[in-house]
Structures are given as C-alpha cells and as structure tokens.
C-alpha cells in the first residue's frame, strides 16, 4: 500500500517537473511555439532569433535547473546520512566553499590554466574534494555530529575569509566578475556542455544507488552498521567522492547554490516518511529538480521587475526552512 502511495507521489513529481520544465521554456521576452522548441533541439537554425533564444538560453537554463537541483539534493542526502545529521549539506559542510575558493583563485589570480573551461571544472572539483576529505578525516576522530557540523561551519568561515583576502587584492573588474559568479546562475552553461555535465551528474547519481544498502544501515548508527558488515571507510570515501563530484560540477558551472542540498532531503523525509535510500535518492532527484525549476520560474516571471540571482532566491526559501527544522526538532 505504502509502495503504491510512494509511486503515486513520484508520478506526481514527474508530472510537476515536466510541467514546470515545459512552461519555463515558454516564459520570457518573446513567445515561442512548440514547433520552434522542437526545431531548436533537433533542427537548429542559428539564424532564427527564436531558435537562438531557445537553443542558447532557455533549454540550457531549464536543463541546468534540473541537473543542479537533482545533484545538490542527492549530495545533501548523502552528507546527512554520512554525518547522521539532518542539518548537514554540501553548503553547510563547506564543500561549496572549497569549490568557491578554488574558483576564486582561478578568477581573481588570473592564472591562465584555471581560466579555461576544464580548468574551472577541475579547480571546483579539487576544492570540493579537499574540503570533503578534511571533513572525512575530522569525522574519523570526532564522534559528535554537532562538533563535526561546527568544524564544517568554521572551515566555511575560514575559506570565506581567505576569499575576502583574495578580493582585497583583486582588480576591480575581476572582483565584479567573481562577486556576480558567487550569486549563482543557471544561465552560464552552453548547449554543447550539457551532454558532458549530464553524463557526469548521471554517473555520480547512479554510483550513489550502488551504496543504498550501506547507507540504510548507517542510519541506525555507525557501530550497528559495522556489526552488520558494512565497510564504513569505503562508504565514507564513496559518499565524499560522489558529493565532491556533484557539488564541484554544479559549482563550476552555476556558482555556489545554497540550501538546496539541505532543504530538499529534509523535505523528502517529511513527505515520504522513509529512510530507505533507494526511494529517498529517487525522490530527491525529482524533488530537487522540481524545486530548482520552481525557483527558475519565479526568477523568470519576476525578471521584468527585479533580477533575482538564483543563490539569493534559494537562500530566501532555504533559510526559513532550516529555522523551521531546528524549531521542529527542539519541540
């Protein structure tokens, strides 16, 4: 019975994503037809303005919203399970900050290699992975989840201070570029990059499906999981690696996007009331994608009055949600 209910909800989520994704393609300065959408995908004419708008702007943006939402939600879920703390997430634990620091180094230092497309991706991945590894090492020595969380927050502050220092010495133009990059954007991705990003995100999410069983046992506690024969070190390494890949890739292409990784996994647990990671992963993929599409829709609809950066909107929604979670947990 419960399985049927879950399938129903997942079906509803898929419907919502399809609706939001499809609708977002039609929101903008000019109206486009379904035929033009189809042509922009399969029969692209670079001389038609409507097709350029679709091919170069709207389709990459909508696709990126889906990919970023799914990737960040999954990485948040993995972090929450690994640290057994519902307030954990790539943003809170400093993985985003690690990626931001390395991107900051690339953008503000002007060191040539990092200014290339692959250089940016690589630097974001390295940054996220280093921070993930530091957190992992800390988690080996520190049992308390609150202490781990505090370390994550402190690391984020330390990195932000380093970024501030870099900003002090940066040229005005580079500083302006980095400032806007840090606000996040779904618009930076090119159509030709979509395939590569989709492949990376898809493979990383698929990899996370391979560790659903150990993740389920981790929920009841590390000791219990060990006694059930789970290789904790291996699971930790995989969790951190997957999260670093997902967060690093999204940060490289969209900038840091806050709170999705924190809010969506919690929302999924509240709605579906399950700890089965097979289901949770599926739900997080769809719920994350849906949430980002909704944010994108709000941004596109408000474009004529105010230009809201994606990171600002997700923080506006995410921060009150965290406050709600903390109050709920306390009571």
């Amino acid at each position, binding site marked *: 019975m419960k399985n049927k209910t879950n399938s129903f909800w997942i079906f509803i989520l898929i419907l919502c994503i399809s609706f939001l994704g499809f609708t977002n393609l039609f929101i903008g*300065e*000019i109206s486009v037809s379904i035929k033009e959408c189809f042509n922009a995908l399969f029969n692209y004419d670079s001389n038609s303005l409507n097709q*350029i708008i679709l091919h*170069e*702007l709207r389709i990459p943006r909508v696709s990126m919203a889906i990919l970023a939402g799914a990737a960040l939600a999954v990485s948040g879920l993995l972090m929450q399970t690994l640290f057994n703390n519902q307030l954990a997430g790539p943003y809170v634990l400093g993985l985003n900050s690690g990626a931001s620091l390395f991107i900051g180094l690339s953008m503000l230092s002007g060191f040539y290699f990092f200014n290339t497309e692959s250089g940016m991706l690589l630097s974001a991945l390295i940054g996220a992975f280093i921070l993930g590894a530091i957190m992992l090492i800390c988690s080996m020595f520190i049992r308390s989840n609150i202490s781990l969380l505090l370390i994550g927050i402190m690391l984020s502050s330390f990195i932000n201070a380093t970024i501030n220092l870099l900003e002090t010495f940066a040229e005005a*133009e580079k500083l302006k570029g980095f400032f806007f*990059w840090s*606000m996040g954007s779904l618009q930076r991705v090119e159509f030709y990059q979509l395939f590569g990003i989709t492949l990376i995100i898809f493979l990383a999410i698929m990899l996370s499906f391979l560790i659903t069983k150990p993740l389920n046992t981790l929920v009841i506690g590390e000791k219990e999981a060990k006694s059930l024969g789970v290789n904790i070190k291996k699971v930790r390494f995989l969790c951190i690696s997957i999260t670093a890949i997902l967060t690093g890739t999204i940060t490289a292409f969209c900038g840091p996007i806050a709170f999705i990784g924190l809010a969506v996994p919690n929302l999924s647990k509240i709605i579906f009331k399950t700890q089965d990671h097979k289901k949770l992963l599926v739900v997080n993929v769809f719920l994350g994608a849906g949430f980002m599409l909704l944010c994108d829709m709000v941004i596109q609809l408000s474009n004529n009055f105010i*230009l809201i950066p994606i990171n600002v909107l997700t923080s506006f929604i995410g921060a009150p949600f965290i406050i709600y979670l903390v109050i709920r947990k306390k009571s």
Partner: protein
Amino acid sequence: MTRIRMQPFFYDFMIFLVKSKKVYFIGLVLLFCSCNSKISKTKYFDKKQSITKHSKHLTIYEKQEGVYIHIKHPEIKNKTYRYFIPINQQSNSTDHQKIKTPINSMIVFSSTHIGMLSELNKTNVIKGVVSKKYVHNKNVIKGIESKKIIEFGEENQPSFEKIISSKAKLIMYSGFTDDFSKSTHLQKLGIHCIPNFDWKEPHPLGKLEWVLLFGYLTGTEKMAKIHVKEVTQKYNQLKKIASKSKTSKTVFSGNLVGEHWWAPGGNSYKAKLFKDAKCEYRYQKNRKKGSINMHFEKILIDNKNTNYWFNPGFKNKKLILQNNPKSIHFESFKNNNIFCYSHNKNKFWEVSACHPDYVLADLIQILHPDINLKRDLYFYKKINEK
C-alpha cells in the same frame, strides 16, 4: 541650581506672552524673517548666475567678497556642501566652509581628478592617489615610483596616519557611499574634504565643468574657464557636424556581468554622447541617469541586429567570448563592429571627462564614415580577434 531658578521665570514669561497674544505676533515676525532670509539667499545664489551652465551638482558663484562653491549631493535631497574662497582673508561666510587658496597639496581619489589637474598643469599638487594601477599620467606615475606621491587604496578605507603625514591640505573624494570617513576630525586638523560628483553628471559638458572646481582651488581658474569654453565650443561644433550626417546607425553598449547586462541608462552621460553623435541608442528612451541592468534574453532580442557594440570592456573578441560565448549571435560581433577604450582604460578615465569633444569626435568618426574629421581615434579602438 541655576536651571531650577530659571525655569519658573521662563514659564511665567511664556504665559505672559500667550495671555497678551503677543506670541502670535512674534511667531509671525519670525516666520516672515525666515522666509525673507530664504528668498534673499536664493536671490544671492541664483543658479542662472552660476559659472557652471551644464552641471547638475556643481554651482559656482563669483561675488565681490569671494567665490562660493555649492556641491549638491546627487542622492540625498537638500544636502549641499558649501565652500567659500575669500578674496580678502578677512571675509567670512557663516554657513560656508572657508578655504584658503591656492591649495598646494591634495589627495585625489579618482583618475578623473588626476586628469583635471593635469589639464591645468597642476599635477605637482597631488600628494596621494588610490593606486598606481589606475594612473595614466606619466608625472604622477613617476611621483608614485619616487615615493613623492602616496598610494592610499580605495577611498572608503584610507589610513588616517598616512593622510596626516602626507601634509595634504585637501582631499578630493568621489563620495560613492557617504561623507569621507572622519571628515570632521580632518577638518579640525585643517584638511578639507570635498566630494566630487562628476561621475553622476548626466551631461558630458556638465562633467567637464568640474575642472572649474580644481581651477578655483589651485588658483588656475582663468585657465580652467578658457578650457571649458574652448571644449564646449568644440563639442557643440561636432554635434552640429554629426546632425548633418545622412547616416544613422543603431548602437548598444555594456556587457554581461554575472547574470546581468549593464548598460548606460537613457539619461546617462554615455547615452547623451550617443545622442549627440547622431545614432540610435537602443535604450535612449529609458529615463535612468545611471546604469541599467537587464537579463541577456532581452539584450539579445533588442540587439541581435544592432549595428555597433560599444564598451564591452574587453580587449579582444576572444576575451569577449570567454566572458559570454553567446555574444557570437550579435551581428555587430560577426561584422567586427565592436569598439572600446579597454586597451587604455586609465587614459579614458583620466582624459575623457576633460575632453568630451575627443569622445564625441571618436564616436562620430566610427558611426559616420561620410564625415571626415581628419584625425585618428583618440580613445576608442576596434576590437579585433586577438
């Protein structure tokens, strides 16, 4: 004790006034006096008598007792900075800050200020600047290298010890945020802090008139007046020449920063230059004086077929594409019709305010090939592949 004794007397006096209805009469007299003083002040400082004709924020009045300089804050209503340069040292003004001129040592916080002092051959008064990397003037660069001129960094976080040790008599700042930090303390030490809102001027000739401020401060007002007069004449002549051109091209300006495209507003300094160069700027009807920001989809729809793209902020097409690969869809990009002053930004920021005629001439030369001004481009350069 004194206060306690004074209070009953004060109340008795007030009651007496109210009872005898004299308070209404006194009130009316006071009201009349205040209105009268306002009217007389307005008459004394009639804007029509100002030396400046185009500036929105700077007015200068030459009177018998000296020169009055009023700098109106562009964003705070009714906030005006008032300065008085006396002819005789005895003359005073109660509501104006008295400045003894000529000023021989000055800290400037903008490249434009350096340019204006350079125009008056007064770069020798400069004792401090923001940074060497924002300077074009060779004398100032030499001064920085020989440590005669101090680098202070951005104007919102200067070192006060450095300011005091520089022995500067005046600080000219841009006022991006608010008053210069600790300006009242500096004032007590005899250092004047004067804001310069030339960057807020919507008219190129209004921007030019700020050179007069430097003129009066450094005792070179005659030179400044001649410069303003000559450049204004040249500017108006060029405007006339452009108006006779048979061609009219479409232009857009700015570039993508983050997710936003920043372009000059329709009432801005740059939009005015486009208008005077007789071209069709896409956002001329917009009423903003500063920059406007738009999302890229709108920019692409509005400007896909626009003839010219100005001020993308990069030296070559490769860098433009690196910043925004979608730039390739602009016809101006495909046709190599992109112009910018990025190859020497410092030169532009230093000289352009003093020479709007050069900027206008550059624009006319680019946009109207039928007009031959017999000169090379001064600020602008065509953006090439590399």
